């Protein structure tokens, strides 16, 4: 994890004490906000997980120990939904890393004219309100939608029925997701523009072609961005559920393929109104995400390259 040097409880000089006071003062807004809007609610939900809290509370509220956790680990739907999320993640993570990177490479190409204009175009879908975007894609990806019209025009007699075929629903969700990569493109573009031009010049003198430059200069310099995108990508994909919720009204169709973990969590909370079990699912998700990102941070030492590293 990102690290300021660990502070030891040494005797502080008056100057250091003054500095510390200022430091606390500046971070105070976050400390208050964290306590009020994160820590206390979190503890409250943690408390829920040891009770039988439901919305209607037909039975008296009692402490049930680890019953909810026992149910959690023996709940086949939980494991199925976790599987759905992981399967989608396998497809989504490479896409959310590569697609913005590739578009950013294109927009950063010296030979491209009007790149500032194109940047606006590629950013555009990012500002479409979410619900409107999903409806639009529902129409685009319908069996008789524009996407299949084009595929038929290109000679594909039986284009996939994207939203109803268990094998094609994930690619369809990926397509819908790609539409919102505007922010990712901008971040990648920024990374590319941060690479010192001299390095490319030097590589060219060495006779390196486009591919060699990409491999030896661009990619190593982009590893921090890739890392950043990967971390945020994991956080996002593990919590993914809004698109299937709206697209399939939360049914998990086709054949349970879109009953993502977070959707199952959401349904337990709001549809089944089982607050205790919903909270348990939420906490388990938090632990999984935390574990995954910690592992990623640990591995980062091996492959993330920092230009300014001392």
């Amino acid at each position, binding site marked *: 994890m990102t*690290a300021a040097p660990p502070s030891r409880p040494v005797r502080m000089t008056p100057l250091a004490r003054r500095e510390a006071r*200022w430091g*606390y003062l500046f971070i105070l807004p976050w400390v208050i906000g964290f306590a009020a*809007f994160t820590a206390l*609610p979190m503890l409250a939900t943690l408390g829920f997980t040891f009770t039988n809290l439901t919305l209607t509370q037909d039975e008296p509220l009692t402490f049930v120990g680890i019953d909810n956790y026992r149910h959690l680990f023996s709940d086949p739907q939980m494991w199925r939904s976790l599987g759905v999320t992981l399967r989608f993640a396998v497809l989504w993570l490479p896409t959310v890393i590569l697609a913005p990177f590739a578009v950013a490479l294109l927009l950063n190409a010296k030979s491209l004219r009007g790149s500032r204009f194109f940047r606006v175009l590629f950013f555009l879908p990012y500002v479409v309100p979410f619900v409107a975007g999903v409806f639009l894609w529902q*129409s685009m990806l319908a069996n008789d939608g524009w996407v299949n019209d084009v595929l038929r025009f290109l000679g594909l007699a039986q284009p996939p029925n994207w939203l109803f075929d268990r094998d094609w629903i994930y690619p369809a969700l990926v397509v819908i997701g790609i539409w919102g990569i505007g922010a990712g493109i901008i971040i990648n573009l920024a*990374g590319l523009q941060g690479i010192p031009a001299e390095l490319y010049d030097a590589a060219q003198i060495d006779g390196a072609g486009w591919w060699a430059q990409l491999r030896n200069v661009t990619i190593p310099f982009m590893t*921090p961005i890739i890392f950043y995108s990967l971390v945020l990508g994991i956080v996002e994909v593990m919590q993914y559920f809004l698109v299937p919720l709206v697209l399939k009204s939360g049914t998990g169709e086709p054949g349970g393929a879109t009953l993502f973990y977070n959707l199952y969590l959401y349904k337990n909370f709001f549809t089944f109104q089982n607050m205790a079990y919903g909270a348990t699912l939420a906490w388990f998700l938090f632990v999984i995400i935390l574990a995954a990102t910690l592992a990623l941070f640990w591995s980062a030492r091996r492959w993330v390259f920092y230009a300014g590293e001392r």
Partner: protein
Amino acid sequence: MRSPKALAVTLFTVLLAGVFLSPFLRSAMIALSTREQLGQANAPIWPANPATFEYQGREMVIYEVPFDDGTRDLALLRPGRTSSEFIDPADPETVIPWEGSWRALERSWTVAPTWSNFSDVWVLIDYPRVLFNTIALAVIGTIGTVLSCTLVAYGFARFRFPGRGMLFTLLIATIFLPAAVTLIPTYTVFVKLGWVGTWLPILVPAFFANAYDVFLLRQYLMTIPRDLDEAASIDGAGPFRILWSVILPQAWPAVVTVGIFTFVYTWNDFFGPLIYLSTRPDLQPISVALARFNGLYSSNPALIQAGTLMTLILPVLLFIVFQRFFIRGIALTGSGVER
């Protein structure tokens, strides 16, 4: 274009952008259609009505009917499975029988866009009011976020204090927190405070910083050399002065970045305004207002898309104006990730 390569790359980009943006064309087509048009079979992709002919108070659809001596545009008088009766609009008195299935015939279409969808949205959701709400929420939320996150990031980047590492780790960990974990208790607190039905549950937290933006800003501030603030400090400037006159002038690309991301995020935020403002339609932003056209038995895709297209203008303008700083802001932050 100077070189063929430039031409090729640019053309490819145009093509890619065309594909990428094609849903907007679909959106525009939907926005210009009526519900009836959207339910028509084998209709063109643009909003169109089949040409019709009115005769003796009856409206009849005109088809392109093939005969041995060529195709004629005739109005369908009496449809039948294997043979039908048509009339010629030029001579409606004579009934023309035709053998074959009328369903296989092409219709002649006329372009019929419904521009009133835009004005309908304007009136139905009280667009000016809703737009004002959206802007106000986005602007205040952005100010709060930028202000608080800058202060907090400055605190983490420039001051040493016991527990800093632990607190920063804690801050980062909140990024990984699923929203559902805190929703119910948070909502309960806002109810107790009497804030539900006001903008406060949405705006107040913005003034208490968030992990994403603090992280981004802190990374950026770390790249700014300390020499200048040390010099200012020796000159007797306090931390606030240093932040204002030394740090901010160098950090504004990152600040603009945080500003734009926050603005767009707040602009489209749906869930928060939905649950906190359900009692007060007069306070709702556009994202919630548009959802009103998505009723279970009253969905109106045309109004949703018309409303969406009308809402894009402001964020896009903002992006165009600020994009230069914006990209520089992340450029330096990006290479400074995890320093």
